[in-house]
């Protein structure tokens, strides 16, 4: 168990900077999920922490020790790779024992620890098999076991579930969370899957184009997205983002179609006419007679709920999530409850909080 501190970490590949200064602090035993679209630099960040890439600038401090320039073998970090990266010529037992043998542990101790870890993961019957004789889920478990058995200071997960089928992914997700809690090892987990991010992390780091955009608990990221990118990235279906302007006095937003939405939580700074982007999650849009007219283009039934994709009168796209099946017609009327409104500055994309 250890703390991890990352200070102003930067990485360039040739003239292209892919990480523009990352600062992070992980408490001992914390699980931080780094989430972002592909190419946002999240995997690079993980590989820098692992030592598989050299940072251009910045420091990585693990458990009080500066490891920035250390070889991966000297860092005491274990990593679970996306494609598992098991040693194909070794049995499951040897895969797990490899790191322990390098550390020169006595044979009996190695045997005991591998057996314990195998029991933890239900791998005991597979210890003699080679990786190619295992299913995808089993390989995933072995990769986990290889990381766990070493009792490292830090776990790194590089999209470990992305090669599994949907059902297995859900169960492995829960299992990873359980194991991480139980072992209490500080962990960094990289994923592009926002559901994984929401369910696994103590905290989330949302990254966009090499810049950390928001670092907060999953619920905070969901409830108070720091900018329009996070707002659109977290949550399915994505949050509706509508163009609007600030009204006189800063007490409300006027949508392009003319509808005025009063802010429930207070006044926003700025002159009348300031360009805003207001966000409303599809599940927060209400069906209400007498509201804005919505022409429905597409109905997506998801079982317990249904997503309606439609257009407002001024052709603005709006999606609405309703419970159960949709029995209405091709037209309906909707309203936006002010309490569920997210307000952003449209130029910077940043969240606008009410003035105190």
């Amino acid at each position, binding site marked *: 168990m250890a703390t991890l501190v990352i200070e102003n970490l930067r990485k360039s590949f040739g003239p292209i900077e892919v990480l523009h200064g990352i600062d992070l602090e992980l408490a001992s035993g914390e699980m931080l999920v780094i989430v972002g679209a592909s190419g946002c630099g999240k995997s690079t960040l993980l590989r820098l922490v*692992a*030592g*598989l890439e050299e940072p251009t600038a910045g420091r990585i401090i693990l458990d009080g020790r500066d490891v920035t320039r250390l*070889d*991966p*073998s*000297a860092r005491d*970090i*274990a*990593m679970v*790779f*996306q*494609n598992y*990266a*098991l*040693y*194909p*010529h070794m049995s499951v037992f040897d895969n797990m024992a*490899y*790191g322990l043998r*390098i*550390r020169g542990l006595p044979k009996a101790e190695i045997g005991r620890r591998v057996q314990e870890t195998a029991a933890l993961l239900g791998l005991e019957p597979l210890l003699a098999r080679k990786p190619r004789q295992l299913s995808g889920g089993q390989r995933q478990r072995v990769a986990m076991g*290889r990381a766990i058995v*070493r009792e490292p200071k830090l776990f790194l997960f590089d999209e470990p579930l992305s090669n599994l089928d949907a059902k297995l992914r859900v169960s492995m997700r829960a299992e990873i969370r359980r194991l991480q809690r139980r072992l209490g090892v500080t962990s960094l987990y990289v994923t592009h899957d926002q559901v994984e991010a929401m369910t696994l992390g103590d905290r989330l780091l949302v990254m966009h184009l090499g810049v950390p955009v928001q670092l907060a608990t999953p619920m905070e990221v969901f409830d108070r997205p720091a900018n329009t990118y996070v707002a659109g990235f977290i949550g399915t279906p994505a949050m509706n983002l509508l163009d609007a302007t600030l009204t006189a006095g800063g007490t409300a937003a006027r949508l392009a179609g003319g509808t005025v939405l009063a802010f429930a939580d207070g006044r926003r700074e700025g002159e009348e006419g300031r360009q805003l982007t207001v966000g409303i999650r599809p599940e927060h849009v209400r069906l209400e007679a007498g509201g804005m007219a919505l022409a429905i283009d597409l109905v997506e039934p998801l079982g317990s709920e249904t997503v309606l994709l439609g257009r407002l009168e001024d052709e603005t796209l709006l999606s609405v999530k309703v419970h159960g099946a949709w029995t209405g017609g091709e037209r309906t009327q909707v309203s936006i409850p002010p309490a569920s409104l997210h307000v952003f500055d449209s130029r910077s994309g940043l969240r606008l909080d009410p003035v105190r």
Partner: protein
Amino acid sequence: MERRTIFAGWKLPLLLVAPQLVLTFVFFYWPALVAAYESLTRTDAFGIHVVFVGLANFRDLFADPLYRAAILRTVEFCAAVTALSLGLGLVLAVAADRELRGRNLYRVLMIWPYAVAPAVSAVLWILLLNPQIGLVGRFLIAHGIRWDYALNGSQAMLMVVLASAWKQVSYNFIFVLAGLQSIPKAVIEAARMDGARGLYRFRTVVLPLLSPTLFFLVVVDLVYAAFDTFGTIWAMTQGGPAQATQTLVVKVYNDGVVNLDLGSSSAQSVVLMVGVVALTALQFRFLGRRSGT
């Protein structure tokens, strides 16, 4: 994975494979059959009388201490060439597999020796090693080493081993490099994360994953050393001095073409053919078993 083209008749396919079949027949099966027949005969010095002698040529051959010495010499030669060329190829491929400046140029240069004709490469080596005019040869003599491969059998052997191995390094280099590149990067990274360093990592992860490639190369190199080195050896030493570099192929040529003992020479080439078939069969069995699992 399998791609099949179905031809309606048999004329077009036959026409398409005919050139290859004709070449194989004229340059391989026919000479092989003639050799097999001649190995059972004895021809007089003028080529007028041919007598069928059964297996007498083979009996004489294996009773001949010179032939047994040539077998031993060939085994040594093949082992040395294989070890040297494979070892060098491995080292160079590992070096070329790293991130390094001018990597592509380096790789291209590494492949060139393979394209050099055996006789040309032999001349190159002679120009380097000749005790009177060779750069290295003169250097050795200047430093008090009695270097003369025309007189010293061990030195001659060393020279033909060097020249033969040099030509095969390229081949090994390409295959080992390809083998190295087919090892998933993540597996190497996993080993680094597990704490494995340099040589230990190479020995426990890279080498085992490379072993099918290496086995293939051992067989290819052995076959190369046993058969394809004739040009190099003949151009350099003609098997001399005093048969010190006379491997089995050189002896076949010497006895048959130079000394005109066609029966014995044919018997020797039949023995060689059996050897190559055995090696190839071994390789096919091994590769077949691996891909079958």
